[in-house]
């Protein structure tokens, strides 16, 4: 596990550098099971930084925002680097952003943190109920020790960690300038059993499920906004000319919105699960993403966010690609 004092030291050191503008990391949240992502400018603020299983947000989502901030008239653009702390899964977002030329590699300083898993707020709520105090936690290969306002309780990993952590294949960052702790051993694999199970249903059953889920959607676009891969200047979903989806939150527009969102992540989703985490109405968004992830892997032997040199999936092809459904 990462030594937090070392982490703060490192952050302060990086922020003191002349060529560094900001650092993105986590600090303790006001209450509850999730830390707050934070952007700090000054070495003196580094004291607030933390890393523990409450650091669930993907800081890579903020890089593109920070990078392209509008420059007030008469001022020069600040082209100094942005430092960012990432877990293994978060780092895949950076890899994919680099594949998509979102910024240059030397514009970011990646501080990698090997991670043993982070807390799922929903699972935690089931165990602890609503929590109004600050929470910290420790995780090892077997258990998670959760400290709720001084009260420490130890729970099973599977009962509290995010599902993505239970099947994590990349606990260690894939891209970094510096690792803030020793690499950890991989503990899981991913057979996509959930996808297979869902596929076993009939079209009617599937639609019945989605009809219910999509009907709940209030189109707050949180899932889009939090996604580290969604940083188009202008999103087709909210574009007016042409208008692909209307703004009404009926089943028709909602379904199309969700198909569009999932489609635009085909071969790009790095499975940080942020979309599903932030959904205020608990739509299992990853069920769509994971289907595509699995198919992309099986059909095209492709995995996004693992190789900076990779060609984008849908901007490449193989003459031998499968085509069994084509007449």
């Amino acid at each position, binding site marked *: 596990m990462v030594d937090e004092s070392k982490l703060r030291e490192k952050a302060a050191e990086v922020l003191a550098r002349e060529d560094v503008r900001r650092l993105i990391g986590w600090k303790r949240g006001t209450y509850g099971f999730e830390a707050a992502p934070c952007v700090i400018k000054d070495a003196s603020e580094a004291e607030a930084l933390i890393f523990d299983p409450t650091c669930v947000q993907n800081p890579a989502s903020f890089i593109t925002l920070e990078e392209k901030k509008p420059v007030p008239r008469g001022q020069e653009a600040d082209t100094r680097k942005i430092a960012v702390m990432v877990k293994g899964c978060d780092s895949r977002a950076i890899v994919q952003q680099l594949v998509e030329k979102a910024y240059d590699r030397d514009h970011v300083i990646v501080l990698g943190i090997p991670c043993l898993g982070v807390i799922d707020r929903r699972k935690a709520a089931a165990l602890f109920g609503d929590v109004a105090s600050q929470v910290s936690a420790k995780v090892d290969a077997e258990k998670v020790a959760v400290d709720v306002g001084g009260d420490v309780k130890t729970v099973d990993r599977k009962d509290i960690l995010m599902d993505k952590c239970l099947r994590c294949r990349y606990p260690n960052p894939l891209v970094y300038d510096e690792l803030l702790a020793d690499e950890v051993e991989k503990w899981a694999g991913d057979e996509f059993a959930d996808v297979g199970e869902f596929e076993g249903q009939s079209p009617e059953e599937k639609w019945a499920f989605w009809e219910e889920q999509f009907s709940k959607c209030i189109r707050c676009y949180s899932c889009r906004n939090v996604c580290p891969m969604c940083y188009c200047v202008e999103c087709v979903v909210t574009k007016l000319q042409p208008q692909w989806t209307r703004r009404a939150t009926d089943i028709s527009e909602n379904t199309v919105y969700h198909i569009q969102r999932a*489609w635009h992540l085909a071969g790009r989703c790095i499975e940080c699960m942020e979309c599903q985490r932030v959904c205020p109405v608990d739509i299992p968004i990853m069920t769509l993403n994971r289907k595509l992830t699995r198919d992309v892997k099986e059909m095209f032997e492709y995995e996004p966010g693992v190789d900076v040199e990779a060609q984008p999936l849908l901007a490449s092809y193989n003459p031998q690609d499968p085509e069994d459904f*084509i007449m």
Partner: protein
Amino acid sequence: MSAEEFEPNIVAFLCNWCSYAGADLAGTSRTQYLPNVKIIRVMCSGRVNPLFLVNALQQGADGVLISGCHPGDCHYMEGNYYARRRYTLMHKLLEHVGVDPGRVNMSWVSASEGAKFKDVVEDTVTKAKEAGPMEQFRRRRINW
């Protein structure tokens, strides 16, 4: 509406160089086929944004068809290869949402395959008939 009287509506996207020409050939050779298919001409199957197809289903089409040149024959060399990847995936995605897989069809029809075009139309219509009217996320028309 009973299955017999249901006549599905199909929107087809055909590439200008092979499939649209194949459909033209079906015409010149007076090959009769079902009138359910309405064609939109694009320059290349690689042009067809997979979201067009979602849009067509939303507008009320009961099935869609994308057709391009056979692999290796694309007028622009590669467009159909990209299309194939995109559609294979979109097909899977829609299936996962519960859309009947028979609604999404893709074919390779060359400029000389007027007869094949007829078969493709027939197949597409049959599958859409089996799937029934597309109601799942059809956009309701509101008459103000």
